[in-house]
């Protein structure tokens, strides 16, 4: 058996055991005189079979706001927040990383803003941008920007001075140094920030959706709705869907990274 198949087998096994135990433990009654008492109460954690049924229902056309529409809304806001956050964070990191004076000027502002708990901004952002897509994107941006910014900043600062010198001796202009030396060496640092950035973008978006109501759509809305109706199954549908979205996005980033950083020894293929 290849290494890959072995890993895959174990993953599958763990999944089956977990889901099986969940289904089984929430199905057996506790030995107790009190009727309806379970070992693990499906009221709180639901059961895989029930979740599946709810998922099928929510995915059907019978509901006003289907799970597809909600997932799409969440993915859309996350991607936008991610893209805007990464590009602005990267640009700011490059500029401040190479301009010592400017970095010193901005340092206290950046630290102050970054230490604000972003969740505290939610009401304000909602007040300004309303309940829709825009508020969620802004919220995701406020988190992603800083993660990417700090990493790129470090990367741009740490560029080997001799690499810059050798580029200058080969005739590079200031801009060519930026393009051929600073950007590629900072990129390795930036990429390290991207996978956590996806998770944080999702956090921003879901928190935005908690407050956003039906206009914002989204899986966060489904979670809050289910809390209102004490419906654990629907909540689980939302959570599992979020998990799948997170995995798919992380894998996508890995692919891009593998291509852009293929010069690094750890991505070297056999050829």
């Amino acid at each position, binding site marked *: 058996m290849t290494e890959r198949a072995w890993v895959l087998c174990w993953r599958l096994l763990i999944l089956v055991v977990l889901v099986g135990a969940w289904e089984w433990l929430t199905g057996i009654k506790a030995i107790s005189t009190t009727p309806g008492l379970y070992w693990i109460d499906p009221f709180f954690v639901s059961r895989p079979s029930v979740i599946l049924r709810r998922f099928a229902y929510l995915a059907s056309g019978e509901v006003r706001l289907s799970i597809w529409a909600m997932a799409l809304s969440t993915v859309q806001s996350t991607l936008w927040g991610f893209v805007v956050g990464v590009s602005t964070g990267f640009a700011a990191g490059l500029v401040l990383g190479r301009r010592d004076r400017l970095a010193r000027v901005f340092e206290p502002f950046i630290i102050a803003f970054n230490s604000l708990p972003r969740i505290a901004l939610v009401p304000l952002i909602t007040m300004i941008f309303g309940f829709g897509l825009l508020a969620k994107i802004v919220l995701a941006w406020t988190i992603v920007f800083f993660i990417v910014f700090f990493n790129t900043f470090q990367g741009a600062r740490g560029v*080997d001075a*001799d*690499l810059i*010198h*050798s*580029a*200058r*001796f*080969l*005739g*590079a*202009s200031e801009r*060519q140094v930026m393009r*051929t*030396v600073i950007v*590629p*060496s900072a990129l390795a640092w930036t990429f390290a920030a991207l996978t956590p950035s996806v998770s944080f973008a999702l956090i921003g978006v879901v928190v935005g959706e908690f407050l956003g109501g039906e206009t914002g759509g989204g899986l966060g809305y489904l979670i809050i709705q289910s809390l209102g109706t004490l419906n654990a199954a629907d909540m689980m549908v939302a959570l599992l869907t979020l998990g799948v979205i997170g995995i798919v996005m992380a894998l996508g980033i890995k692919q891009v990274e593998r291509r852009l*950083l*293929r*010069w*690094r*020894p750890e991505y*070297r293929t056999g050829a």
Partner: protein
Amino acid sequence: MEAVHDVSFEVADKEFVAIVGPSGCGKSTILNMLGGLVTPSEGAIELDGRPVADVPPNVGYVFQKDTVFPWRTVRRNIALGLEYRGVRGDEQERRVREGVRLAGLEGFEDAFPATLSGGMRQRVALMRTLVVDPEILLMDEPFGALDTHTKLTLHAELLSVWEARHQTVVFVTHDLSEAITLADRIIVMTRRPGRVKLVHDVGIPRPRDVIKLRETEEYAHEYSVIWRVLGDELAEPGGVQGDMRNAAAAHLGSGHPPRPPASRPPLE
């Protein structure tokens, strides 16, 4: 901290000058000043009669440290200087191919530096500098990190390029054999703060065979003459460095200069 003190010398057009001295004597600082990376606190560096302020054009610099860009393939590393100067298309491709051939790296054009040996990477760095045809070449212990065999091969390659194009070269090294093999003139530095201790013309005719050279009388003579001066510098307290210490001590103790080390390089 003062790295060098009252250092003054001239390098003629098309001349190959080597600067040798103990570690920390400011050899690299001199080179950095020549290249415009460091501004001298006193005095001036002049190039063709004009003071050097910034990195001058037509000057190539080869570092001891590996400065090949790891995110570029061999081909794209060698193309760097041409790219910066706006040489594109067929012309770029032709000159890069020529560079790859001279570096003996055919078949490795699309390899990333991480897959190459130290010697191959230094070849790329050297060729990347030579492909834009600089008139002046500053080299800071470019082969310092390489094994003897690779070093000798690169000496031969450097000499053949130099015989063909006759760049003005300033070559910093702590390896006396290397200096004698390559240079027309050798500048010996004192310990820190470095001063010029000796300027010596190497009387070995060209073209030189980097391997046979080491068995000749002339080579042994040049070596002992310079070693007598350099060895003193190494033996003084505080100036003793690394593995040269024993050689220098032996020289002082026995009263005659040590034989040049590695007179027979390990070739297959």
